[in-house]
């Protein structure tokens, strides 16, 4: 098998170029770029405390990135992670509220199951529409994000609202005893562990099983896949089910480990950032883990940037936008550096 360092070297170079461009941008906006980078590092990876903050934020990002990465492997560009997080979190919260007096392990299992099922069906519906009706999956997944948020607002402002939640209308609490706990003596909740497990498991599925091989063939050339007798429709639907289940689990984790209720914190852009993480990781589930940690770091440090440098909270959005553009532009560089490949042959 021909291997190359390109998928590692080019994204890292692109990240550095984007940081440089962001530095120029904030310098033009009147900030001290070096100080900003220093704060970003401190807020993200400087201390054990900031590391824990970063990893907690990386957990949902890993799962929402899977929601874009898996369908991308079969050729679908789905950006509906945000909606799947919202519906997954919403049904998980409902399950928790209904079962609140059962034993915590039952409650959490049921919540995860329900969150993953609804999230999975949500995304599978998108690829079913694509397959059976020819509806563009990118647009329909984005529309469904807005629909999911509207449904959630309807429920938390109306029938499911806990009257005690005044400034941020939310559902009732699932019960403190039922919350997802931290791992060992850290302040990192088990959501991070679940995210890593999901990434590794799906990497094994995609890279080391006939299923993953079939998905990659269908993603490369649908006609060839059909001619060789692969059940392309079923592959598409199952991949999307898994993708949506990952994002639904992210919603369940946000409810069960962080908020205890479903509310507008569910649509905190995790779904949209996941798209970016997936593209930088080149839709490789294993590569998603480090990239998600990096972006969890950007998220964790954004408070520090606002406090110490008086930068608006949108600066992390600008940074993400720049990174996304540069990463996409760098796609055109693949295959142009023969020396990155030659190295591998001697090794």
């Amino acid at each position, binding site marked *: 098998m021909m291997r190359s360092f390109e998928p590692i070297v080019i994204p890292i170079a692109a990240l550095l170029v984007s940081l440089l461009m962001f530095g120029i941008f904030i310098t033009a906006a009147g900030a001290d770029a070096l100080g900003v980078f220093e704060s970003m590092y401190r807020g993200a990876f400087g201390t054990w405390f900031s590391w824990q903050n970063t990893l907690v934020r990386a957990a949902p990002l890993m799962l929402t990135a899977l929601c874009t990465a898996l369908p991308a492997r079969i050729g679908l560009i789905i950006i509906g992670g945000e909606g799947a997080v919202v519906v997954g979190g919403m049904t998980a919260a409902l399950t928790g509220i209904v079962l609140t007096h059962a034993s915590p392990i039952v409650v959490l299992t049921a919540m995860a199951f329900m969150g993953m099922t609804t999230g999975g069906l949500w995304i599978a519906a998108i690829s079913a529409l694509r397959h059976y009706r020819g509806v*563009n999956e990118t647009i329909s997944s984005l529309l469904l994000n807005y629909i999911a948020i509207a449904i959630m607002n309807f429920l938390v402002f109306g029938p499911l609202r806990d009257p005690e939640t005044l400034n941020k209308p939310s559902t009732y609490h699932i019960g403190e005893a039922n919350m997802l706990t931290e791992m060992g003596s850290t302040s990192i909740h088990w959501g991070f562990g679940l995210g890593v497990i999901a990434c590794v498991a799906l990497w094994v599925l995609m890279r080391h099983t006939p299923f993953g091989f079939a998905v990659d063939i269908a993603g490369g050339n649908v006609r060839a896949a059909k001619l060789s007798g692969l059940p392309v429709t079923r592959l598409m639907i199952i991949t999307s089910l898994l993708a949506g289940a990952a994002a639904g689990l992210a919603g369940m984790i946000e409810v069960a480990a962080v908020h205890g209720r479903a509310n507008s914190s569910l649509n905190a852009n995790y779904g949209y950032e996941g798209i970016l993480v997936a593209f930088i990781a080149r839709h490789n589930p294993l590569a998603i883990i480090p990239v998600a940690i990096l972006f969890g770091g950007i998220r964790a440090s954004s408070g520090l940037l606002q406090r110490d440098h008086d930068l*608006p909270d949108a600066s992390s959005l600008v940074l993400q936008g720049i990174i996304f553009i540069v990463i996409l532009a760098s796609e055109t560089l693949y295959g142009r550096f023969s020396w990155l490949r030659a190295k591998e042959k001697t090794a």
Partner: protein
Amino acid sequence: MNETEFSLLNILIAVIGGAIRVGTPFLFVSLGECLTERSGRINLGLEGTLMMGAMTGYGASYLSGSPWLGVMAAGMTGVILGGVHALLCQQQKVNDIAVGIALMLLGTGLAFFLGKPLIQPTAAHLPSLHLGSWSDSPVIQAALDINVLFVIGVLLAPAMAWFFRYSRWGLYVRTVGESADAARAMGLNVNRVRMYSTMAGGFLAGVGGSFLSLYYPGGWSEGLSSGQGLMAVALVIFARWNPVYCLYASLLFGAAATLGPTLQSIGMTWGYYLFHAAPYVLTLIIMITTSSSTRLLSGMPGQLSNVK
């Protein structure tokens, strides 16, 4: 009895007025997207262009005191963003859908970042034509305040249709959109035609954005756009890449989006948050009913294999 009929008429007029108000940004963005897609490329980044247009339009109007300068500034921002999109897409192996998503993110982020100081001040707004002055009813008067940009948009739609059908440049755009190979054989520079189309499309989307901040809802805030730029892309499919149909479709979408607030104003508050979903549900239903998995859509430019 007579009174309820009158109020029904009022609701109808309010919905029509709302359709025009809410539909105008849809109209401009969809005309811009229509032009871009006819050249064979999809620009999903128009959502970001819309936000940047709203922000720069508001800023320019505030600084210069002239809303029309604001509209021009918004259009020029759109031209720049369209140029970036075209430049990136003409590189090998770069996917135009992904570039669109990235520009959506970047445009929104930049607009929020640079627009922070614009949340407080008030800028000069665009003027409107008072077509309701014949009536004594303030409801009708308010509903029939037609903004000038809508009038321009209404004229622009048939003009663009004429451009596609009868002008030399319209033929270039259509040829490039139908078959890049045929266009190359004719000696056309495919990338250049697409770049101009994307830039012009960006101009229109930017103008649509300036409408949001300079007329309705008016003012600059981060919640100004909620997917209008993207819905416009779906709307172009629904309109079968025909500029005149884009006009009708925009009004339909405007009416759907204005339904919730109108019902709330007459006291129907039950499903207020659900009605927020109405335009998105409508878009989705339209896409489901009008698309097909087996045949190509009529009117679809040949190079747009991706939009199906």
